[in-house]
């Protein structure tokens, strides 16, 4: 059975296709992650997501150069276009 499913998959992005319409987790450059429902993607890993929650991991540095503990900032977006050059990984969310 697995072979049957695998035979139609010829390149890595074919796996992303399986997540269309599903919630995915995307790790981005710049210490950001987003989760959202995947609507479209292309060969450059440009993706369109809806119901997005973006998480930004921030480390603030005090004036004397000491890093504060990392903090997390979140925001929610209705619809988001993510340019592919920032994408590090795409994965289906586990539920």
């Amino acid at each position, binding site marked *: 059975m697995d072979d*049957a499913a695998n*035979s*139609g998959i010829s390149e890595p992005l074919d796996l992303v296709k399986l997540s269309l319409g599903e919630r995915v987790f995307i790790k981005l450059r710049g210490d950001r992650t987003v989760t959202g429902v995947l609507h479209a993607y292309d060969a450059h890993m440009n993706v369109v997501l809806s119901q997005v929650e973006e998480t930004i991991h921030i480390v603030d540095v005090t004036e004397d150069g000491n890093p504060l503990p990392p903090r997390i900032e979140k925001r929610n977006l209705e619809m988001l276009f993510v340019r592919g050059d920032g994408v590090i990984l795409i994965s289906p969310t586990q539920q």
Partner: protein
Amino acid sequence: MSGFFGFDTSLPGRGNSGAQGGRQQFSGFQASNVDETFALGGAGEEEDLAVYTWGEGGMGGGGLLEGGDDLNDETFGGDMGEISNNFQFSSQPAPAPTTKGKIASTQSRYKPKPVSDPFAFSEDDFYSSRPTAKKTTSAKAPSRPKASTAQSGSVENLWNKPAVSSPAWGTAPSSMTKPTPPPSASYSSQPPAPGHIKSLEEIEAEMAQMAMPSTSTAAPTQQKVLSLEEIEKQMMEQIEPPRQATPQQPAPPREATPTQVPGLAGSGYASQQALLDSMFPELGKGPAAVPGQPTPAFPAGQMQEGQGQPQPPRPSPEELARMEELHKRITAKIQSMGKYNNLMGSSDKDFITRIQLSQLATADPYTSDFYAQVFSALKRSRMIAEGQGDGPTVVQVGAGMGLGVGGPVGNRFGKMGQNTMTKLSTQVKKLVENRAQHQKVANTAALQGALGRVTRGNAAAPRPVLAIPTSNKPENRPASQLNQQTGVHRAALTKKQVMFALEELYDAILELEQMRREAPPPTAMEEIEIWHAKCQAKVDIIWRRLMVMEPLDISNPHPFISLVNPIKGQKLFPRLLRHLPHTQSITLLSLLIATYTQLDVVVRAPPPPVADASLLTKADRLDRAKREAETDSFLQFVIPGVDMIINRCGLGLVAGMLAISAQRSEVWRVAATRPGVALYTALLSKAQSLIRSPTPDPMNSQQNQQVDPAELEQWSKTFTYFLHVLLPHLNDLFPSSVAQKAAFGPGAYLIGGDAVSDREGQEMERREAEVWGFVAVLAVNAAEEDQTNLVGALREKILHTVQSSRHPTVSPARAEMKLRNVNMFLNGLGLDASMIE
């Protein structure tokens, strides 16, 4: 910067430019001018894409000839004077004010310049050098009409400036990279200060100057044979109306000067201007037609003397400050972008454009560019409503390749459009053909890079720039695999398999829908038959992929149920049903009902709400939200389809379905979920309507016959069994009762009480209504003694609901909903809630 930005924003501004002419007198930072600057720049960008003649020797970039200075004349055109002026704008290395104050003659002629005006030099140089230029040109013209004129001295200076970047807007790159040795004569003119910076206005004016030749239809070939007289005449034209070239003034580009720039005519600006003309026809009119007249861009005093036009009010200081701010930002932006000017030669641009175009070209533009087509159709209908013309929705590029365009082509690109698109399509056609040939040679290239390794290719098998789909992947169907191992109980489909199967189904459905759209004309009988056969074949494929015909117990959940479990599959359901014939949809429904308990929305129905959401963990909340979303989606997408199929069933079938459900599942568990309630309600109400209204239907006499006594008897038997299984659990069907049961601890008393917000309460009543509707159809279907049983089982629930609706703390809206719910049930029995004391 994007051409579209310029395109969009400039349109409204243009209409104003005339009216705002007075303002432009004292403000160099008119918004409208800013707009125009961007519009021009944007148009330039557009032109890069639209008007380049790829691979045809490059008129725009004729500049890639490296050696051989003897071609310089042709490259630079005959009149270096004008060119030098035109090129100056681009050579702005820094925003700093001028280092050398070259303010002289022009200052006397024009309004006093601000001290910090960074734009002081260019016109000064321009004019002071002109007499010399004229002399030298006249002297040299007979022998070498195209030789560098006196003003090339200033060009030379520009080139020799250390930090000078190459010209903006992509003008003839080679001319900047290859300085000509200046004729000694040209040095008689005053070289401009190296540190000078051009202002936005100057840039505008110069762009406008460059833009002019298109209207003069000057072709490079003609320029080569300019006679002395002609050159002189041109020089005179420049001198005589000198005001018009004032770069100090934010003149609207087209009005700025009648100066001819013949040498640049072939450099792409001509075509750019033509494009501009086509896009903004109103620009070309007006002042440009009367070049001798002073334009509205002149200082206030002159303006009033010259034309006496009414003066609009002065802009307020804040406005001025704002505009200055804007201007600074724009200048800085242009400068920052200017760093990269002419990094790419025209062949580089061609190359990239080709790559981009080849990405766009597709073998099936109608499907691949579906959204462009839809957008185009919408736009087209609007334009037709406005009385505008029609155009193709697809640009054909070669055999079977094309790209969809959003919106009519001709209108988009103006009168240049058709021409440009023709060029473009020939380019892509060449590319595609070339590519196709290559693929014949090296077909294994398709697999290259599949594993992510970068293949560099070689001469025999170059790395594909354009991937044309050569063969279809072998069709993968888990179902066929399954059929080979009949009778075996297997593991359920994995999530990956489900997703894969769904993607295949979507592909098939999309193809089928596309096929249906391409129906041949009703007159062509043969074609219609072929078309029908093709559609039927596709439906068969879809049917097989649905895996409905798998044995019922092949796995848990059944493969088909696995397909409808994800929201993606649920959304597919109504689209599928449209194409399935009646018998197949009945089969599908029977399977669905038989395996209803395997549905995620039934097995993992959302748990009853808790009194205090803070008791839940985050994962819990997410899980609940997901289940709710799945249930909602199931009710939205699948249930309407189920209703539709049920509505086409006869009583016998309905009875059969109910029997299947009663046999194969614990009815009360299914009925305790919203999808279950919806299914049973649909079945029971259909049965009731079949029994109640056996009135002969002239359209469908069959239906009347279907209610024969045997079927009726079968139905009542099945229903009675169903009801009796359900009766003991009737109270548990109501969400409020379930919630109360599930509640525990200190929050328990809150359920259904005052603490629940009214909104949540109303949502609860809405859910309750579904169940009340269900028990109502139960009551309607039930025989008399069963009705008594039913009322007995629900007695407490009814009393409780009616009493709570009269409770003072319950909001009127909710109370009304409660009463309506109860009455839905009671009215079916001929009772009413008002009868309850």
